[in-house]
């Protein structure tokens, strides 16, 4: 018995000894369709970090809808950094005390290392002649995008279509809603995430046009073949930022802040920007952007702040239960 107690006591002491060494691994919690992007970023980051610091590190990846990810972190997923596709989900982490309130000033461009926009993927030759947002409401067009309730990606699609309609109908809300209702009625299936929507469109032959981030559209053309699909960039679209943040509560507990910061800084480095551009994301680094200019056609971009008065208002007015989205969405 005495021996048992002694063992227990020494085990307790061991457990109480502070961990001196810094962890050499971090977890990046990200959105659904960023799997390949961050695999590529990690493959570039790890050797560059080892060259600079002489330490081999590991970056673990976790992917799901960003709201799901934010909830998982609030409930204990030990993610050191988040790389999301919309601001509100990081704001939830701020409210939960996981991320500091000034996170958007911690990194350049409001903490968004690269950006994209909702664009269209159509079948080769564009048989239904879909060129802009207006075509999505036509009776003969089947439209595929994921459920805006479960996918940040689709929230951009909804907002982009709405921003276009606001201009087109000169702010007449009845016409805007009528247009949006028609678009939603043209959707035969609402997948819960962006990748599911791509699969439904490409592999199961659903619909005539897939709307997702330009990055995913271009990658799909590369992956599935230019003889099968082509990309269509509409005349106007919504700036889709991909905000990143350090999860303070987790890095402080784990002692991984330095590594976490190096990782996010890397996304802004020319090397990190090049990886993102290769994966079809538009980047802010001028030299890299010039290198990949022929890949990205000119498009007029509206941003959420100008068109909708910021994400906080958008969440409340559009995406809350019973909000403007529900009014055009439930109307089946």
């Amino acid at each position, binding site marked *: 018995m005495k021996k048992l107690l002694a063992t227990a006591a020494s085990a307790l002491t061991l457990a109480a000894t502070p961990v001196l060494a810094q962890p050499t691994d971090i977890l990046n919690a990200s959105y659904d369709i960023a799997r390949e992007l961050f695999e590529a970023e990690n493959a570039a980051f790890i050797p560059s970090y080892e060259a600079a610091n002489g330490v081999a590190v590991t970056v673990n990846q976790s992917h799901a809808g960003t*709201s799901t990810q934010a*909830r998982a972190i609030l409930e204990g997923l030990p993610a050191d950094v988040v790389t999301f596709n919309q601001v509100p989900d990081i704001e939830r982490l701020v409210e939960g005390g996981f991320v500091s309130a000034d996170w958007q000033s911690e990194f350049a461009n409001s903490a968004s290392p690269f950006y994209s926009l909702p664009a269209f993927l159509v079948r080769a030759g564009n048989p239904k002649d879909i060129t802009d947002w207006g075509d999505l409401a036509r009776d003969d067009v089947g439209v595929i995008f994921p459920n805006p309730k*479960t996918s940040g990606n689709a929230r951009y699609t909804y907002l982009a279509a709405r921003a276009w309609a606001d201009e087109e109908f000169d702010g007449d809300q009845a016409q805007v809603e009528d247009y949006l209702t028609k678009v939603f009625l043209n959707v035969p299936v*609402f997948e*819960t995430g962006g990748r599911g929507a791509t699969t439904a469109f490409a592999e199961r*032959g659903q619909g005539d046009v897939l709307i997702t981030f330009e990055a995913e559209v271009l990658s799909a053309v590369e992956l599935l073949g230019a003889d099968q699909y082509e990309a269509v960039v509409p005349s106007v679209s919504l700036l889709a930022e991909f905000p990143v943040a350090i999860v303070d509560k987790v890095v402080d507990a784990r002692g991984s802040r330095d590594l976490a910061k190096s990782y996010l800084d890397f996304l802004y480095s020319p090397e990190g920007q090049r990886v993102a551009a290769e994966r079809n994301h538009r980047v802010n680094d001028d030299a890299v952007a010039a290198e990949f200019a022929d890949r990205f056609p000119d498009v007029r971009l509206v941003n959420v702040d100008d068109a909708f008065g910021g994400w906080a208002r958008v969440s409340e007015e559009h995406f809350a239960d019973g909000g403007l989205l529900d009014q055009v969405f439930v109307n089946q």
Partner: protein
Amino acid sequence: MANPRSKHLLPGFGLTMGVSLFYITLIILLPIAAMLLKVGGMGWQEFWRITSSPRALAAYQITFSSAFYATILNALLGLLLAWVLTRYRFPGRRLLDALVDLPFALPTAVAGLVLVTLFANTGWYGQFLEPNGIKVNYTQLGIIAAMTFTSIPFVVRSVQPVLEDLDAGLESAAQTLGASNWQIFTRVIWPSIMPAFISGCVLSFARSLGEFGAVVFIAGNLPGVTEIVSLLIYIRLDEYNYEAAAALAFVLLLVAFLTLLATNILAAWQTRYVERSA
């Protein structure tokens, strides 16, 4: 050596009972209590508003009716399957027997993906069904297919052991007394297997109500048309509306619980009835 005077067959009744109760509390009761606590945080009116919204009503309708149809299918085919497995000896019987449990082992999301691929217009089933105007993917038929797949083991596994234990002598006796096959089935076999059969069907129904993984891939998830309750719960969670999610979950749980309760009462009544008439 157990005390020969002990009333209980198993030694240490107090201890084993205590451990069992503790385990049930830890695994089942506390999680449910935590959910109820969330529901308790909201007012009655708020609860009513959330659980009776048109969208929620449409989701109940589609979920309950699909679970019902899936259960009917499984009741008929499950009974047949249990019969074949117990009464006949044929090559591959053990394999078939093992296959029945597969839906329990397979991740339901995988099942959903496989079904949606099979029923796509290019898939093995879909290429024959779609030209004939039968669309399964993204319709209620798809939901029923997914529910049927994930819940069939319940009926088979409930009925099978009872059929196996059925005294063959009773059937022979009935036969010698001149009973027809139909009479043997309705008077001798059916009363013995009915309680197990019903409990299997109820479990299958309750399982179908809560099925999420397989269904979301094939349902189409159109609000008011093919949106099931568990997806609506998931959507409310994604809106960080934990209370609304808990309220909807409470409704599902209540229906499942009432179904189970009603069956238990029915089974008790049936047992008494059989005993009295025997």
